[in-house]
């Protein structure tokens, strides 16, 4: 009897019997990470298996699969979901000298459970022909009446907006942000729709004058192979908000190693590879994100936007205020 069960299990688990491998649940789209993973496999001989999906559903899958999950690493594109995974006790503590050394303290978890892998900022963009740069100042200012019918921003279902609002709640408190939210929503030029690129295109087309996007989208369009993207992006300027106060809202894409990881050693190896020079340079060159390693050069587009003051808020707070932010956005009617 036992022999048969052994055989059965052997048959079922055939594929995981491979020697060196690491398994990833990734919220980052396959095309935007696969080349790096291939490089990693080439260098180390460790096979990388990946399932992509929305961060929330991947979390759900991890919870259901529990300690038997085949995944070793959860990769997300926003810190809020990393914090949520941590709250659900899915991650384990990792002591890696290299990770701690390379990643600045505010871009990794105090309990060493998750690590930022690349940096992005959420910035104000505007149409220079219709907006005087001197009229722009801060995120808070976007609730001002002078922007009525002039603002484009994507849906509040998007985690980047949730994290921005969460950061503002951390900085200004719920009441003040809620008042701001009402003002902002009443300034919308159209109901929120589409992604960040859509907001850029909408401003270029004259639907609105001001928008909120992650900076790498603008960079990506400027460098795009599609002419229409470049034409649109060139009509847009970037503005660093909050330079005299908290600084620009920052977010990370990041990862943590799961509690039940069966390939912990390989997983750490992969995370270390991802903060290494090769990977960071790739992020910067291909995805136009800021390198987590401040010593590395950023891409030329990013450099052209100059230096800026970044908000040094502990990213953990973004996760903690995530649900508050969402409910606030519901209340102020941010669709």
């Amino acid at each position, binding site marked *: 009897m036992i022999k048969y069960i052994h055989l059965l299990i052997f048959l*079922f688990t055939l594929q995981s019997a491979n020697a060196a491998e690491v398994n990833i649940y990734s919220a980052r789209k396959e*095309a935007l990470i696969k080349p790096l993973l291939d490089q990693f496999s080439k260098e180390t001989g460790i096979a990388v298996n990946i*399932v992509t999906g929305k961060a929330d559903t991947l979390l759900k899958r991890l919870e*259901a*699969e529990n300690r038997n999950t085949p995944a070793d690493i959860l990769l997300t594109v926003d810190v809020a979901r990393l914090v949520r995974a941590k709250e659900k006790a899915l991650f384990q503590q990792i002591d890696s000298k290299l990770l701690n050394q390379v990643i600045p303290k505010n871009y990794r978890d105090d309990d060493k459970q998750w690590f930022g892998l690349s940096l992005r900022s959420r910035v104000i963009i505007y149409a220079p022909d219709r907006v005087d740069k001197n009229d722009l100042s801060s995120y808070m200012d976007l609730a001002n009446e002078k922007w009525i019918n002039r603002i484009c921003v994507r*849906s509040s279902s998007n985690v980047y907006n949730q994290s921005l609002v969460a950061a503002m709640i951390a900085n200004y408190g719920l009441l003040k942000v809620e008042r701001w939210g009402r003002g902002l929503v009443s300034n919308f030029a159209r109901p929120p729709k589409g992604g960040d690129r859509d907001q850029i295109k*909408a401003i270029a*087309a004259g639907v609105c004058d001001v928008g909120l996007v992650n900076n790498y989208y603008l960079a990506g369009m400027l460098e795009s192979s599609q002419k229409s993207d470049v034409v649109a992006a060139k009509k847009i300027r970037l503005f660093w908000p909050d330079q005299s106060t908290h600084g620009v809202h920052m977010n990370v894409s990041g990862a943590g190693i799961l509690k039940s990881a069966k390939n912990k050693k390989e997983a750490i190896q992969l995370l270390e590879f991802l903060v290494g020079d090769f990977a960071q340079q790739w992020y910067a060159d291909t995805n136009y994100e800021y390198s987590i390693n401040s010593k590395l050069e950023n891409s030329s587009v990013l450099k052209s936007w100059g230096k800026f003051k970044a908000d040094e808020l502990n990213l953990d707070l973004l996760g903690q205020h995530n649900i508050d932010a969402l409910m606030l956005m519901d209340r102020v009617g941010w669709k």
Partner: protein
Amino acid sequence: MTRWNSLLVFISLLFSIPLAIVFGSLFFPEYEVWEHLRATVLIDYIGNSFALLIGVGFFSLLIGVIPAWLVTMYRFPLSRQLEWALLLPMSVPAYIIAYTYTGALDVAGPLQVTLREITGWQYRDYWFPEVRSLGGAIAMLSLVLYPYIYLLARAAFIEQSVCVLEVSRTLGCNAFGGFRRVALPLARPAIMVGLSLVVMETLADYGTVQYFGVSTFTTGIFRTWFGLGNSLAAAQMSALLLVFVAVFLYLEKRSRKQARYHHTSSRYSSLMQQRLTKGHGVIALIICAAPLSFGFIVPVSLLINWAIDTYLDVLGKDFYLLFFNSLFLAFITSMLAVGIALFMAYSNRNNQSLLNKIMVRLVSMGYAIPGTVIAVGVLIPFAWFDNSLDNFLIENFNISSGLLISGTVFILVFAYLVRFLAVSINTIEAALVKIKPVMDEVAKTTGMHTINILRSIHMPMMRGSLLTASLLVFVDVLKELPATLILRPFNFNTLAVRTYELANEELLAEAAVPALAIVIVGIIPVIIISNSISRSRPGHG
């Protein structure tokens, strides 16, 4: 017979597990979240969902039923080709048509950009329909969902006894009057089956409305589940959605009262298609060509146009694997769906107990549930089973089985079945009803066993319907996205997943290639279905 019955109950319960999880949530009220929803977004969700349902229902009826009538009853230029071509939009996933039209017609799309360049207008100087809006969502969903109604309406019109139409004409009805007062009411059960499929698809749609920024009940479920992190409240919302569908189906059935729709006439004089005059023919052609053009020709041309630029980058060994995966899943699922539906419908026929009826209805509810909800509803119990088995084996034999089923193709196929069994069951039940019980009795008197009767009498008589059922499921699986995304094993991609990932990154041109592949694979079964329907009436086609 009792063994059949217990098997029926077992299968039904198995496929109802995700539903049970959804409904089970109702026992744990989440007052706080509901209060928040009620105070903020619920009205919006309900309002938009209603508007969407009514809009999509109305337009898909309009562009489904009228062309079905025209191509069945009349001959006009291209009418023979339109018969099958009108089904083609079925192979285009809703989210893909949404992406294409947005890409072309949006404020920043080529059309409006050119318009502004030529005229020198600014954005606010002219009016242009907004694609990404509630109205846009209604248009997109109607354009790809109307074929369900067209398909069933046409089959009903073809089967209709010509005599009743002739009677209506002798009683003073003109062609339109006969259509309105006789043909349409008689085809109503079939049209309603089509409409209920459309309604359920509309309610389950997430991709289109989310992309268009329309908050519906379904996007609300996702927001509550994943944003607010409250799976109970989300499941409760899904349950309400289901209750709504159930009430809708019940009211429809009740409104028919005791009127029956099988034909009192057993005579089928062959359908004589009337040739239209040139003027009328052109009008009919325009009416029929419109849904086909906007639902298929235009979006597919756009996709081809984009794909020409990018296909070299996207095609590759990897791509053929996607192709194979999609085909494999669609094939396996459609075969199983037909097998299971046949079994269930047949058990129900032989033993029409209330229990059996409820079981069959229960299993066909899955169609109305958003794919993500089903996926999670499948994920939880199977992972629980895997983990429990693992615990048991470790304790007793010191072996770990790990996750036996979760994360395999099996669980994926299971989820597809939960979602799409409704399609095959509905189709096969409808076919089985038409076979008179007298056939069974005749066969039994010759000493045939039940299974043999099924094989040698029912199956051949239902061949067309079996084919239709399997191909509908095939196309649906091919297009399915959310459940695939959540449940698939490592390194396992499908065409739909690839399309979504690229389109979601706003790489529409790159997404065009896998999207086209879905459409191309989907076209083949669509044409087969259409042919089998044309042949379903003796002396026609």
